[in-house]
C-alpha cells in the first residue's frame, strides 16, 4: 500500500509520481476547454480560423503593400501566415495559461492534483488551434502552388520549441497571476505589442545586423525564423547565433518556470 507523508516542504518526491497518476487529467481539462469554448457560438470552430485569417490580411496590407517590406521571394500572405502559426499558438497559450489557475480556482481550493496539470492542459488546448491553423496553411500553400523545401523534416523540432516557449512563459504567468492579478492587464499588452515586436508581419532579416543578437533574446524570434526556414525555405536562412540564443532562452524559461511554479504552488490554495 502506498504510504503518503504530509509535511511542510515535503511534496517533491510524491509530486512527479502524482503527475503521472493524473496524466488523464491533462486530457480531460483540455477536452473540457475545447468542448466549452465554442458552445453557443454561431460559427463555432471557424473562429479559430477567422481570427488568424483577418490578422494575416491586415499584416499583409500594412507590411507588404503599404510598408513594402522585402518578401524574400515568397508570396507575402504565405510569409505572414507562416509567422502567425507559432505566434498565435504562443499568444493563445499565454492568455489561456495566465488565466487557467484563476478560472479553475474552485478546483484548486477543493481538490488535490498536481497543479502543473492546469497550465499544461491550456497549452494543449491552444495547440489544437495551432493544428487547425496548420491545416489551413497547407490549403494556402496549395492555393499559391508553393512547394515546401526539404527543410520541412525539421519542422517537428521547431514545433517542440514553440511548445516549450509557450509552456515556459505560461508557467511564469500562471503562477504570478495567482498572487498578482496585475498580470491580467499585462498579458493582453504583451500579446498586442509582441505581434509587432516579433517578426510576424516581416522577416527578421530587416532587423539591422548589430541588433540581431539582442533581438533573438525574444525566444519567439527563433521559433518564427525556424518555421519560415522549414516551410518556405528559399531565401529564409537561419541566423545561427540567434537560434542558439533563442534556444537557450527557452530552456531557461521552461526550467525556471517549473521551479517558480513549484515554489509557489504549495500556497496556491491559500492565496487564490
Amino acid at each position, binding site marked *: *500500500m*502506498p*504510504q*503518503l*507523508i*504530509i*509535511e*511542510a*516542504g515535503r*511534496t517533491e518526491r510524491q509530486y512527479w509520481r502524482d503527475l503521472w*497518476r*493524473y496524466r*488523464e*487529467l491533462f486530457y*480531460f481539462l483540455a*477536452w*473540457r476547454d475545447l*468542448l*466549452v469554448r465554442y*458552445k*453557443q457560438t454561431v460559427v463555432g470552430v471557424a473562429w479559430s480560423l477567422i481570427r488568424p485569417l483577418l490578422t494575416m490580411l491586415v499584416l499583409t496590407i500594412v507590411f507588404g503593400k503599404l510598408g513594402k517590406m522585402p518578401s524574400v521571394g515568397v508570396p507575402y500572405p504565405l510569409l505572414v501566415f507562416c509567422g502567425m502559426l507559432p505566434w498565435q499558438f504562443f499568444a493563445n497559450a499565454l492568455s489561456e495559461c495566465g488565466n487557467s489557475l484563476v478560472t479553475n480556482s*474552485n*478546483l*484548486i*481550493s*477543493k*481538490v*488535490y*492534483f498536481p497543479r502543473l496539470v492546469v497550465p499544461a492542459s491550456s497549452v494543449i488546448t491552444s495547440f489544437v488551434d495551432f493544428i487547425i491553423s496548420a491545416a489551413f496553411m497547407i490549403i494556402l500553400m496549395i492555393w499559391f502552388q508553393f512547394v515546401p523545401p526539404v527543410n520541412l523534416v525539421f519542422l517537428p523540432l521547431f514545433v517542440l520549441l514553440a511548445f516549450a516557449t509557450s509552456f515556459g512563459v505560461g508557467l511564469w504567468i500562471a503562477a504570478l497571476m495567482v*498572487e*498578482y*492579478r*496585475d*498580470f491580467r492587464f499585462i498579458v493582453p499588452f504583451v500579446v498586442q505589442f509582441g505581434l509587432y515586436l516579433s517578426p510576424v508581419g516581416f522577416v527578421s532579416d530587416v532587423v539591422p545586423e548589430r541588433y540581431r543578437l539582442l533581438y533573438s533574446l525574444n525566444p519567439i524570434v527563433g521559433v518564427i525564423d525556424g518555421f519560415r526556414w522549414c516551410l518556405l525555405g528559399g531565401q529564409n536562412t537561419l541566423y545561427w547565433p540567434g537560434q542558439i540564443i533563442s534556444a537557450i532562452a527557452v530552456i531557461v524559461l521552461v526550467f525556471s518556470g517549473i521551479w517558480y511554479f513549484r*515554489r509557489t504552488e*504549495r*500556497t496556491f*490554495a*491559500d*492565496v487564490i
Partner: protein
Amino acid sequence: MSSSIITVENLSKRYVIGHQRSKGDGLRHAIEDAVRNPLQWLRSCLPSSISHLPSTREEFWALNDVSFEVKPGEVLGIIGRNGAGKSTLLKILSRITEPTSGRITIDGRVASLLEVGTGFHPELTGRENIFLNGAILGMSRVEIKRKFDEIVAFSEVEKFLDTPVKRYSSGMYVRLAFAVAAHLEPEILIVDEVLAVGDAQFQKKCMGKMDEVAKKQGRTVLFVSHNMGAVANICTSGLLMEQGKKAFHGPISQTVDAYLTSSAGVTGERVWPDNSYAASKRIRLRSVRVVQSGEMKSTVSLDRPVSLEVTFDTLVPDLEISVHFHLIHPSAGVILSTANFPSATLGRDVWAGRLWHQGTFVSRCTLPANFLNEGTYFINVAIMLSARETEVFVGEALQFSTQDTGGMRREYTGHWIGVVRPKFDWETEKIASY
C-alpha cells in the same frame, strides 16, 4: 502505532492575516520592496524565511499542535463550531494546502469530497461532467466507464444525461455530483458537509451510501458535519475541535456530548453584565434563563412546565416591543418560534401591544409539561420593535437539556424518536365483534 491508517503528529497551520508587506499585497509592493532593499527581498524569497518575517504581520493559528490517530475501518466524525479548524484539517489531509509544521502519515489512497460537484462545468452535459468530475477526483477513464451505469442509476438523472447541467435543477445537480463521488474507491474517504444539500429523500440515500462505504466495505471515513444526528449515526468515533486545538477524541457519543456541553453556557443562564450588551441603543439585554419550578436549571425535567425568561432594560420610552424565542434542536434545526403577540399567546401578556415604559422588564414564555423530547435544545432570543424591526437578536443564546425523570418510562423504556413528544388523546373503539 503501526496499526493506524492515519497518524497525525503535532500538526499546525498558520495563516498570516493583515499586513505582511512582502507577500499577497499586489505587485506594487513586491517591486517596491525589491527595489528598496534587494538583499532582504532576495532573502525573503528563500523558503527558510518563514521563520523570521517582519513583525508587522498578524498570525492566526488555524490548527495548533493537533495529534490523533485513525484505525483502519474507523469512521471518524470531526465536529466543532465554525472556525474551529475542521476544514483546515481536511484541507491539509487532502493535500490542498501544506501544514506549517507537523507530520501526517497516511497508508492508502485518499479521496476527498470537500464539496459536491467540484469541477462541474455548467455548459457540459451530465454525461460529459461525469467523466470530467471523475477524472478530477482521481478516477481513471476505464474506471469511470466501468461504473458509469451505476453512477447514472444512483443519480436518477438518466433522462437528462445529454442536457447541459446548467439546465438542471439544483437537486439533480447535487444528485449527479454526489453519485460520482460516491463511486470512488479509495481506502480513505474524506467528506465535508456534503449532506447539507439535496432533499430529505436524497439525503437519506447519501447517508445510506456513506454507511455502506464505511460498514460493508470497511473503509476509513473522515466526516465533518454540523448535523449531530448524522454524525452520531454514521461515525464510530469522534474528534472535537476547539479554536484549532483538539478538545476531545473518543467514542462518538461522548464527543457529541462534549460538543453540546461546550458550545453554549451550561448553567441555565446567560448574563450580560452591566452595559456589556452594546448591539442596541434602545434595548439592553441583561440575561436569558431557563427556569423550572422557580429555579434556574440547565437540565430540566420533561414532566413539568419549563419557562424561558429574558430580562432587559428599555433605554427609551414608548417602544412597541415584542419578545420572541426560537427553540432549536441540534440536528433538526428550528422546531418552533413563539412571540408574545396577543394573537399568538394563550393568555394575554399585559404589556403586549402597549407602549413600554422606560425600565427593566422580564418576559417569560412557559412551555407545557410533556412537550419536548429527551435531548439538548438551544434558544435564540429576539426582540422586535413594532413587529417589524429586529432590535435584538442572539442566536443560540442558551442551551439546556431535558431529561425524562420517569413520566413516560413505565411501559416503554427505550428512546422516543422525534424532536418533541407531547402527550395526546388516544382512544380505541371496538367497532365490530367476530
